[in-house]
């Protein structure tokens, strides 16, 4: 179990903010931190991994204390050894894919894991390439594989898929789930994409101005998700227009815009920019080979 109880003064774009955070994460869970930018999500990850020092508080992981301001305990990032996948991937430009992974080995560690991870991430053919020659999705896979080399118990993913196109994102989501299960990780994700969150995580914490304002099982968190409807996607409202006695709501789902007819009562609750779930019974859509 990971328990965090942290206070930290942060300077954000909107001025000063005091992060005051209490959260517990069960071992083996896939947890998402959700919230608008500047809410303190990345700072939380950085404090957990030792890259940012809290002003006061406590971090306990299992039986070990990683940080305790009262007892002056503050383990270095080197001692915490979390697998951290950065938003910009942070691949070492001077090293090939294989060298990036090998660098992460700790002293005396069996090299066999490198081959295993390269294979698992489907990077075998790219292992001699330098990071600058890789596509976004490939870089992401290298960053993830590299974070797993030292067999961490905690994997931290800071908006890992936000820069990728939809197709690659969906593929990598599958891959993240596999990794999480295969290596029995406790995974902490920062993400804005509701579809992604629902698909991946067990539990969601919503942060707002440095505090947890809502938490819950991912399926319950966004309300409507637990319907029997099988044909469902999350997206963002682009346009709401009145037509006759109904409204037509345009929703951006991935790279596609779909239109959904909505009753005036529902439309009144929506505004442009809202994250929404679009669902229908699996019986209704038609399917045709292209």
């Amino acid at each position, binding site marked *: 179990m990971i328990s965090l109880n942290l206070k930290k003064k942060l300077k954000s774009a909107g001025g000063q903010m005091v992060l005051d955070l209490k959260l517990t994460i069960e071992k083996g869970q896939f947890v998402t931190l959700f919230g608008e930018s500047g809410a303190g999500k990345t700072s939380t990850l950085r404090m957990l*991994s*030792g*890259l940012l020092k809290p002003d006061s508080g406590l971090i306990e992981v299992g039986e070990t204390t990683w940080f305790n301001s009262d007892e002056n305990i503050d383990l*270095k*990032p*080197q*001692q*915490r*050894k*979390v*697998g*951290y996948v*950065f*938003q*910009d991937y*942070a691949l*070492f*430009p*001077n090293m090939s894919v294989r060298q990036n992974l090998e*660098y*992460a080995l*700790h002293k005396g560690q069996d090299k066999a894991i490198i081959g295993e991870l390269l294979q698992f991430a489907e990077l075998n053919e790219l292992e001699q390439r330098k990071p600058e020659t890789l596509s976004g999705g490939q870089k992401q896979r290298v960053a993830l594989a*590299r974070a797993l*080399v*030292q067999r961490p118990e905690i994997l931290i993913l800071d908006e890992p898929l936000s820069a990728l196109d939809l197709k690659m994102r969906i593929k990598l989501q599958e891959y993240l789930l596999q990794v999480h299960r295969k290596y029995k990780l406790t995974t902490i994700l920062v993400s804005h994409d509701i579809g992604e969150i629902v698909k991946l995580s067990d539990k969601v914490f919503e942060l707002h101005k440095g505090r947890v304002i809502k938490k819950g099982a991912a399926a319950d968190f966004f309300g409507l998700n637990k319907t029997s409807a099988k044909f469902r996607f999350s997206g963002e409202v682009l346009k709401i227009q009145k037509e006759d006695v109904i409204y037509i709501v345009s929703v951006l789902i991935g790279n596609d815009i779909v239109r959904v007819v909505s009753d005036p009562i529902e439309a009144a609750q929506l505004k442009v920019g809202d994250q929404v779930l679009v669902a229908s019974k699996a019986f209704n859509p038609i399917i045709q080979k292209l």
Partner: protein
Amino acid sequence: MDWQPLALTFKLALVTTAILFVISIPIASWLSSTKSKLRPVLETLVSMPLVLPPTVLGFYMLVAFSPENAFGGWLNEWLGIKLIFSFGGLVLASVIYSLPFMVQPIQAGLSSLPPTLKEASYTMGKSKMKTLLKILLPNIRPSLLTGIVLSFAHTVGEFGVVLMIGGNMPGRTKVASIAIYDEVEALNYTAANNYSLILFFITFIILLLVYLINGGYFKRFAQ
């Protein structure tokens, strides 16, 4: 023509650059990562030689290292080191005088790297030293090269500090720039021109090489 001043110049530049390279990396690394309030002070000190007339620096070093003064006397008596009018003194003065030319490019290079590179290495359990040597420095090779070449060229070209602290002793402190001055004083323009031409072309070639390498020309040819 007397080659000794030229040989001495390049020996001085080489030794100075080597020492600067070793001491500038920790200084630049500290400057690029610290949040300490001392940082602006140290940055100012490092940059002082850029604006200070070399004679000021040379004058104070001359005073400090003079065996008649406490510090210079102590050095002379206890360590047997005589820094004025000696090659050792020239090296020390050149190191201080060229410090910003080595520290600043390295510091700028380190600051331009995304902080996540360093952080990624730390979360992998790697020490600061290992991170510096294996990740940070290899990724700022152009900056290192710039620092090395600028320091070297600047040391080759220095005059005021050398004259103040080293004087004009053939074979020991008479470097090329001073030899040129000497020859001009003696109205020996041909010799002055010889030294000048050699310095001109050597520095031109060195700088040209830097621009070619850092400009990526070599990389493009290699591919």
